């Protein structure tokens, strides 16, 4: 009952937040002047520029442009991306799939490794393993992704040549249908094991680089909440029942320690999402982040607007889902503030 009300309240606020975000995003792009630049070349003369402005409705007043934009968005027209040289809508799904594949892979790395390391450290508080894991996780939170990724690139690509860059071997993937856009899944659906292996191979380095920071955050949270849970009476009570240490840790303490960790995982998603910009630049991953980075450098405002809008909506929804999961998981939680 309580949870349902809470969810309804959150869902009602969601559109307000989305509209607010859209206004901020639009206002931002217009603060910097007209987005016409991306459609021009430095060899164009003013008359040609005027023609281009008319083509994109950029000769109209700014509020009118906002409505053109919103109207376009509702009709599935997100504008013309100068960077991709195509309508944003055409390019978006493929890039989105690429980014999500990377973010999810990194998320899997981060969640599984983070929880494992956090549990390991929390259960061995103040032992050597705990200290090592703590150093690694504090380091992860302070590690500039762009630097860590470059280090990986230097070591594993330039020096050792173990891992490739990019997303796939195009020769393998041309032959495969792309119903989902996730190369790993597409390869499996096509039953092409070589392609699947190739997709995984390309994923490892960027996913590890991207996942490290999130791993650190999750491990840290997991460790501290596990330590907190291990201080609880019910842990002693469970031990007093004669249960094995392993059962006490896994069935009792870890289960409850996971609950606060879930909220952190939600926040981590934002972290992963923004990390894709840097990871995709460095590992040459053809996703949204890389697109955004070129859009930023070349002033492609249709892309910037779409990207920021979309990631923030995604971020909002993920956090809403996480909150709902959290509310359902934690039977002690009191909703609202």
């Amino acid at each position: 009952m309580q949870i349902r009300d809470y969810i309804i309240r959150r869902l009602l606020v969601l559109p307000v937040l989305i509209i607010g975000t859209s206004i901020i995003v639009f206002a931002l792009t217009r603060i910097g002047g007209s987005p016409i630049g991306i459609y021009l070349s430095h060899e164009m003369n003013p008359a040609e520029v005027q023609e281009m402005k008319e083509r994109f409705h950029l000769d109209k007043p700014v509020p009118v442009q906002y409505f053109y934009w919103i109207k376009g968005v509702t009709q599935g027209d997100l504008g013309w991306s100068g960077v991709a040289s195509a309508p944003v809508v055409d390019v978006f799904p493929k890039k989105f799939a690429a980014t999500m594949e990377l973010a999810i892979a990194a998320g899997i790395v981060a969640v599984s490794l983070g929880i494992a390391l956090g549990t390991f450290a929390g259960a061995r508080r103040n032992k050597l393993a705990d200290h090592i894991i703590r150093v690694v996780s504090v380091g992860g939170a302070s590690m500039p992704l762009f630097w860590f990724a470059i280090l990986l690139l230097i070591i594993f690509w330039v020096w050792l040549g173990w891992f490739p860059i990019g997303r796939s071997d195009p020769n393998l993937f041309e032959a495969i249908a792309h119903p989902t856009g996730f190369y790993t899944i597409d390869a499996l659906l096509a039953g092409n094991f070589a392609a699947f292996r190739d997709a995984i191979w390309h994923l490892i380095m960027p996913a590890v680089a991207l996942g490290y920071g999130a791993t650190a955050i999750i491990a840290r949270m997991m460790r501290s909440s596990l330590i907190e849970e291990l201080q609880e009476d019910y842990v002693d009570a469970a031990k007093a029942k004669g249960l094995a240490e392993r059962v006490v840790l896994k069935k009792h303490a870890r289960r409850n320690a996971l609950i606060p960790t879930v909220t952190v995982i939600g926040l981590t998603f934002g972290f992963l999402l923004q990390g894709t910009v840097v990871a995709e630049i460095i590992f040459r991953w053809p996703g949204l982040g890389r697109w955004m980075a070129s859009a930023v450098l070349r002033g492609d405002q249709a892309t910037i607007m779409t990207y920021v809008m979309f990631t923030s909506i995604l971020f909002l929804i993920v956090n809403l889902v996480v909150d709902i999961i959290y509310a359902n998981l934690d039977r002690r939680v009191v909703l609202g503030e």
Partner: protein
Amino acid sequence: MSPDTIYSSDSLSGDLIASVSDLKVYFQSKQGMVHSVDGVSFDIVDGEMMGLVGETGCGKSVTARAFMQLIQTPPGVLAGGSIHFKSQKQCKKCTGSGCDDCSNTGREIVDLLSLTERQIRELRGDRIAMIFQDPGKALNPGLTIRSQVAEVFQEHRESDVFERAGIADTMSGLTSYLLKQYVRQETNFITKLLLKFPPFSLARKKVDKAINGLVSDALAETQIPNANKIMERFPHELSGGMKQRVMIAQAIACNPDLLIADEPTTALDVTVQARVLDLIKDLQKRHKTSVLYISHDLSLVRRVCDRVAVMYAGKIVETGDAETIFINPKHPYTQGLIKALPSMTHERGKLEAIEGMVPELIEPKAGCRFASRCKQKKANCDKTDPELKAVSNKDKSHKVSCFLYE
């Protein structure tokens, strides 16, 4: 009973179930070593209800936890002493016929503090059980009552479970392996998956049903109405009194020899307190369980306990029959405690509090711990520790550690 024999020997006299001797538990802290329990000795007679009384932080809970090896090390340090306990097993030396080692009881006597993890686990929940102060915290909020109570049976009564399920004789091979894993909570991803499908799932359901029956019986034992419904609930859906009943059910499920009740009623409403207390008393009588009852409330202890030990700042200051101590307290601290009780003999509003604060237990100096608050302090109180000695030759069971009685 001859209490004199207890302290020095490794064995227990016939009618004792447990004996604590010179127990020392310290805790490391940034400021230094905290002497939480500093040389505590007392015994528990088989079948009796022994009270351990003292203010918050005097070390009584730590003492109780020491029975179960529940003290975290570090920061805790077991600095010395022993807790001897008469287990159900036959004495290894005489195989039950009776010898010196087992004080002719025929049963093995173990030092709870020196048992291995595996050995203590066998005792925990089975032979020694514990009821915690706050049932709201001692029950896992994320698990149903059923699964929590069931754990006791799964851990200690595996054969009962199978017998009740009616498959004890028919089990074999993989089914047996899987079900044992299931009951012992040792399943992994694969076995868990296997158990979801027939034929294993059928046997598993029988086992579940058997466990449910055991749990429901155990809950009913503590007068929980609708046990079958209650056990599907989560702890936060139950009232405090109900939760404590669940804790008690869980504790007595295996009919333990020794039940440690660590302030079982403190966290409860006053009305519920009495009923829970009655329940414990009743169960203790019926099952002839020995109980170590820990409380800060002397009057409560008087109501239910046969004997009492009063603790102050990590030491026992006085011990004896509950009635004796209540009527004729010897130690100034005990006297203070009793004066602080509201009772019919005092006028309203004339409660006397003990002045001063409990001294810090970090690297304590020699001398009586109570000296700083004692109104009858003497010169040597600050210098040497008084020993726990019988008050008189007549009543050897009433002992006090105070220089006033030397």
